């Protein structure tokens, strides 16, 4: 059976061009970038080239890019790094209630270490209100962290407005841009951010590599100790091949982003329209317009997400859900609940995220298959009867 991959927000296949760019760094150019002889300098040069490319994509300076082991590490680094470097100035952090666990769990950790955290609510579309950010600021606030776009329901947050507020108050501003870098334009100066997390494997790069943008002058403690690498902020021998692949992925993204965003926005609209028309008692989660070009998230009343996923998988379609049953925690999506969805609606959510190899035919296939799956599950749902 031909498989249809619609979970590009979880990860993307590594672009063949990216794989090609990485290969020499496993073999001929295997050197340690810290070595002074030619092998080392070759590797060092390749890292610096990648750094320029990543910096270019977000309008940063190359010395402001620190390579990490991924998006989660970048989030951890930003939050802990600023928190522990700012203890003499304050202990208050502002974030939102819909952040990725990499931010939320790090905040929880910091709370246990004596920091206090405000988790701002969101509206029905998942938008943070910049006025709420302003109100939450105290003289102890050291950091504001709000994600650029949400990984589950795709809403793009009013980052530039929050950036202005943070700048006026003189508070560091971090954004988790893992879902946006390479998909929509990201400019650290227009957005007014001091720290920005990104990940390679969400933009057709390899897994296990990401970066944290750190605006020049931002004070934060190193994430790892034990070497001179990454301006002493992240010790450890660099993941040379991964970083080179990240650089190549960024280069490709820069070339293809605007055409690809347009193509995916069209397919997204077709998919949303088709699903809402063909399946009754269904709602779109997230903002209808201010959303990632590739994200579709719907709640299908009366059915549970994992049972939809299993049935879709039987038809070769890979998707994702915010239902508890798909996770080991048995808690349904904190994002959807924060937007005011009922637990049933959160359990009945389905996320389909599109990407480079998504075709119109695949979208039509989903539109053909999903209504049948929902009908089958609704026929055995005790919820439907009680709503009649």
């Amino acid at each position: 059976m031909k498989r249809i991959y619609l979970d590009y927000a979880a990860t993307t296949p590594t672009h063949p061009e990216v794989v090609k760019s990485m290969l020499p760094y496993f073999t001929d150019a295997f050197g340690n970038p810290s070595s002074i002889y030619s092998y080392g300098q070759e590797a060092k040069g390749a890292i610096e080239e990648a750094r320029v490319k990543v910096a270019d994509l977000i309008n940063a300076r190359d010395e402001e890019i620190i390579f990490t082991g991924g998006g989660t590490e970048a989030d951890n680094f930003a939050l802990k790094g600023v928190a522990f470097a700012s203890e003499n100035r304050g202990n208050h952090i502002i974030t939102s209630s819909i952040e990725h666990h990499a931010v939320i769990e790090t905040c929880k950790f910091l709370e246990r270490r004596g920091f206090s955290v405000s988790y701002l609510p969101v509206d029905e579309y998942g938008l943070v209100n910049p006025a709420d950010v302003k109100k939450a600021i105290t003289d102890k606030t050291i950091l504001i962290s709000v994600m650029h776009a949400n990984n589950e329901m795709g809403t793009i947050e009013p980052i530039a407005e929050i950036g202005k507020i943070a700048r006026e108050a003189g508070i560091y501003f971090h954004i988790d841009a893992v879902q946006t870098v390479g998909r929509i334009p990201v400019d650290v100066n227009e957005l007014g951010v001091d720290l920005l997390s990104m990940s390679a494997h969400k933009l057709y790069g390899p897994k296990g590599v990401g970066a944290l943008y750190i605006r020049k002058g931002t004070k934060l403690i190193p994430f790892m100790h034990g070497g001179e690498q990454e301006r002493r902020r992240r010790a450890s021998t660099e993941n040379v091949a991964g970083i080179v692949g990240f650089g190549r992925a960024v280069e490709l993204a820069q070339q293809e982003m605007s055409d690809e965003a347009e193509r995916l926005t069209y397919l997204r609209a077709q998919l949303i329209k088709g699903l809402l028309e063909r399946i009754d008692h269904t709602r779109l989660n997230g903002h209808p317009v201010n959303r990632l070009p590739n994200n579709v998230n719907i709640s299908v009343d009366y059915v549970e997400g994992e049972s939809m996923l299993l049935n879709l998988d039987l038809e070769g379609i890979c998707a994702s859900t915010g239902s508890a049953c798909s996770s080991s925690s048995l808690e349904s999506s904190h994002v959807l609940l924060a937007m005011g969805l009922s637990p049933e609606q959160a359990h009945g959510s389905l996320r389909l995220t599109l990407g480079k190899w998504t075709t119109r035919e695949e979208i039509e296939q989903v539109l053909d298959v999903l209504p049948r799956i929902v009908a089958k599950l609704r026929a055995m749902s005790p919820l439907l009867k009680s709503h009649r």
Partner: protein
Amino acid sequence: MHDLWSLYSEKVMEHFKNPRNVGEIDNPDGIGHVGNPVCGDIMELYIKVSDGTIVDAKFKTFGCGAAIATSSMVTEMVKGKSIGEALEISNRAVAEALDGLPPIKMHCSVLAEEALKSAIEDYLIKSKGG
């Protein structure tokens, strides 16, 4: 082959794909209603009893693959059993009949046992009252 499939035994998937005894029974002798929307599992189990024997059982379930499979299995297991025998069906027995469940899904088998017990209780109350 697939990640989602590797979570479940073939038997679980077979019952998930072709669930037995889906639906409601007209004028049932007992109804069990368990679970809650917060956890994402709701089970309704209907039984028909004749001369102290469960002659028919049907279910309706909102839940994950394991919830649907355990509902299907428990309705199969209970048919033809006396009330006394049916009360002895444990969640472990349901899970074992499905060739096991992943640890995080064991609560689904508990729910199936509870649904059955609740349907029998309902039957016992009704038959006493009637």
